[in-house]
């Protein structure tokens, strides 16, 4: 089998607070014969500070990474962090629609960014390169009730991303159903988790994330599934503030979708970094995989 080679931008979170996200992405990629090539000499994407302060800077930082990836001969770039993904796609969109700015940014970064790169978030990466391989490699069914949490950045703004339905996204649910999970319909799929206030205003995070965790728990979900390091931090790490807001202790764990896939593929929990979570991930008793699971693929592009 020929090895698939894809560009990879881990970003700062995946090297720091969200090491387990990086580990789980790498683990499932390796398991399924995909090589993720990091962009040489990558730099910060600029989120979330740059675009509030300086437009040129906020476009130049991602543009340099994109140009580097192009120079390295990469065609696709997998960007697991939702914030990085948002900055990259926004930059691509803005530069491709504003020739003056494009030239200016090329000048700043001292490179020519052509815009030929396909930028993939983790869900798009899974849909395109993972999902078809699952049937042959899956060991366990992820037979749990899960609440897929998309957060704000993964599907917005629709005009730029043209990915999934903004108000009621479905792509993660489809992946989880494919793993055998019972993916529930719930109310907080795309509500704000508190994001950048994680450090500066933890009370707000407690309130916002509190509602999210409470609703998932209330509807009987056994795990929250996420695809963004920021969401994960808030929902997992800020559990004391969350519990304080809700006035009760909630034990529902928060998993990256790549960790869930890893578990289904039978990868060791520690390789997937599950031990790093603040909320203990107790999920076990997975059923051995018996037969292929057919999932109806929803029409996910939204008409505007």
């Amino acid at each position: 089998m020929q090895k698939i080679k894809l560009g990879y931008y881990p970003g700062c979170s995946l090297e720091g607070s969200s090491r387990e996200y990086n580990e789980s992405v790498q683990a499932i990629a390796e398991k399924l014969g995909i090589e993720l090539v990091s962009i040489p000499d990558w730099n910060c994407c600029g989120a979330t500070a740059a675009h509030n302060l300086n437009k040129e800077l906020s476009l130049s930082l991602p543009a340099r990474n994109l140009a580097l990836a192009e120079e390295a001969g990469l065609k696709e770039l997998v960007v697991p962090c939702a914030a990085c993904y948002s900055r990259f796609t926004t930059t691509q969109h803005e530069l491709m629609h504003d020739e003056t700015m494009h030239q200016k940014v090329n000048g700043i970064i001292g490179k020519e960014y052509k815009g030929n790169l396909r930028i993939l978030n983790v869900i798009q990466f899974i849909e395109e390169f993972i999902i078809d391989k699952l049937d042959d490699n899956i060991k366990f069914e992820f037979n749990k009730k899960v609440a897929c949490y998309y957060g704000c950045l993964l599907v917005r703004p629709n005009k730029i991303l043209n990915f999934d339905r903004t108000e009621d996204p479905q792509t993660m649910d489809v992946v989880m159903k494919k793993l055998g999970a019972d993916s529930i319909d719930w109310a907080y799929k795309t509500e704000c988790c508190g994001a950048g206030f994680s450090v500066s205003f933890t009370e707000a995070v407690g309130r916002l994330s509190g509602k999210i965790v409470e609703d998932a728990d209330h509807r009987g979900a056994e795990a929250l599934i996420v695809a963004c390091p920021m969401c994960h931090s808030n929902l997992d790490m800020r559990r004391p503030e969350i519990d304080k807001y809700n006035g009760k202790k909630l034990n529902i764990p928060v998993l990256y979708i790549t960790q869930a896939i890893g578990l289904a593929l039978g990868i060791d929990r520690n390789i997937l970094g599950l031990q790093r979570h603040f909320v203990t991930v107790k999920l076990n008793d997975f059923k051995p995989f018996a037969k292929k699971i057919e999932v109806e693929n929803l029409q996910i592009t939204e008409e505007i």
Partner: protein
Amino acid sequence: MARIGVFICHCGENISATVDCPKVSEVAAKFPGVVYSIDYKYMCSDPGQSMVVNAIKEHKLTGVVVSACSPRMHEPTFRRACAEAGLNPYLCEMANIREHCSWVHEKGDKTDQKAIDVVRMMVEKVKRNNALMSIKVPVTKTALVIGGGVAGIQAALDIANAGHKVIMVERDPSIGGHMSQLSETFPTLDCSQCILTPRMVEVAQNPNIKLYTYAEVESVEGFVGNFTVKIRKKAKSVDETVCNGCGLCTTKCPNKKIPNEFELGMGKRPAIYVPFPQAVPNIPVIDKINCTYYKTGKCKICEKVCQAKAIRFDQEDEIIEVAVGAIAICTGFDVKKTDFFPEYGYGKYKDIIDGLQFERMASASGPTSGEMRRPSDGQTPKKIVFVACAGSRDPAKGIEYCSKICCMYTAKHAMLYKHKVHDGTAYVFYMDIRAAGKNYDEFTRRGIEEDGAKYIRGRVSKIYERDGKLIVVGADTLMNAETVEIEADMVVLATAGVANPGAEELAQKLHVSYDQHKFFSEAHPKLKPVETNTAGIYLAGACQAPKDIPESVAAASGVAGKISCLFANNELTREPLIAFVDRTAPPEYSSCTGCFLCQPVCPYNAIEREDVKDRNGNLIKQLAYINPGLCQGCGTCVAVCKSKSIDIDGYTNSQMYYEVDALLNS
């Protein structure tokens, strides 16, 4: 020698604020052939028109250029003025320096130059205008009314009562339209059906009205006074001439589980059905898609029970061709369905309904016999939320326009709810209350002050279900924009009024224009609100834009008035701007070579083959001949003719050539 007069209008300040009118007039005076040039504040006013009349007489003008607004606005005005002065009206042209110049450009030399150029181009054109005589065509004094809602009913009755024949075409099995679905009407709360059904019966009984229900317009040809319309009468599978409307078939039909369209899916109906008890005509139709016989070849119970022997399974669609002189489009509107709203669950929550569904629920003849029972479990909702402007006035992701009727019907809904569920609470989320109309504001106030509807000014961001309740999340902008969450039992979305599906297709059949929302366009937003750009075709009701009942009825009567005016004459006058083939002396007879490559391009089959014969009847030549009665003046044949043997009055080769040529001299 041409003696052209140029009249530059200031249009108050509409033109003069941007264009230096005296300068334009001064420059125009020096154009070759111009003998008189003047500017004035309001050319279309009485004194302005008199200036034109007097100048024609005094300066013996042979042509007039009025440089003012769009010819679509005032060309008839000034042509009349010319005629009054004894100048052939077709020797008058307008140079558009308002819509195409002063309103769209900044003040300055470039704009002045443009105005001057436009006048010069029109002067060169008008020099070559021909004196024309208008064309008389006979009028077929029968009107076609498309759509049998309240607007169609009103238009048909008014025209019929004026003594003219009317043909009404309705797509559904019964006339009545959306109004027949409503429970009560604002601002009087009188019962909709009580006021409508007598009018429906009147339509059926009026000897001047021929009604085709379950029928659609197939094609339209011809022009004002002389349309030929093909109507497709869909097979009802019931012989209308025999059926006595006893309704036994509908009660015996074994397949009664079909979602009822009239009840917007909230009730069920059999495969053979009349849409509602007061239907006109009271003749059932068989829904071929759901009928067991049509699906499996077995059943025919309706045929067995029908004592009148009216069931006709082998009935086929019938095409009827009618000749009419005028057409009224009264096709109405539709409401956006709740599945349009992702933030409100894409229509997946049963207890989120639209306004029209609420009307059925509130109607005594509706699926709940007028009791408030929510669709999911039949419980009486104790807390109900009405969302006004659901998706409307939202250019970002919804529908940008205001649907106008929702503020009023939402107030009505809240009141009806409170009248039926005394201990219930009704919340209304709104952006603005637009209650402009006679007794309208009083009505909404009554809803708030007397019936206690709780109005919250803000939009609803999201609705989700939790523990059997609908959680409505919104903002109260009058309370520091705080988030409001209401646990509701039922939600009613006042969704936008949108164009009917099929409106675009109908517009294309009729060759009338429509706007970006697929609503039909009026000829002028203020002065020709019921006319379309196509002579002889008129608009009434909500097919033009969302309208309430009084407005629809008023427009319908307006249309009836317009059509009656048209029918008051036996002949009508048509603009003589039509194509013709040149004729010259023998032995040429014409430069036409008789290739007839013009023939296939004519949309009106107006081009005929004329035989030129000698004295003994021998054919000398075959030439194209354009039937002036049929030609509508598109001029496509003119551009197709290689030998330039065809020309078109009003836009002759010479006129257009010199209009363009005038550019060179600037």
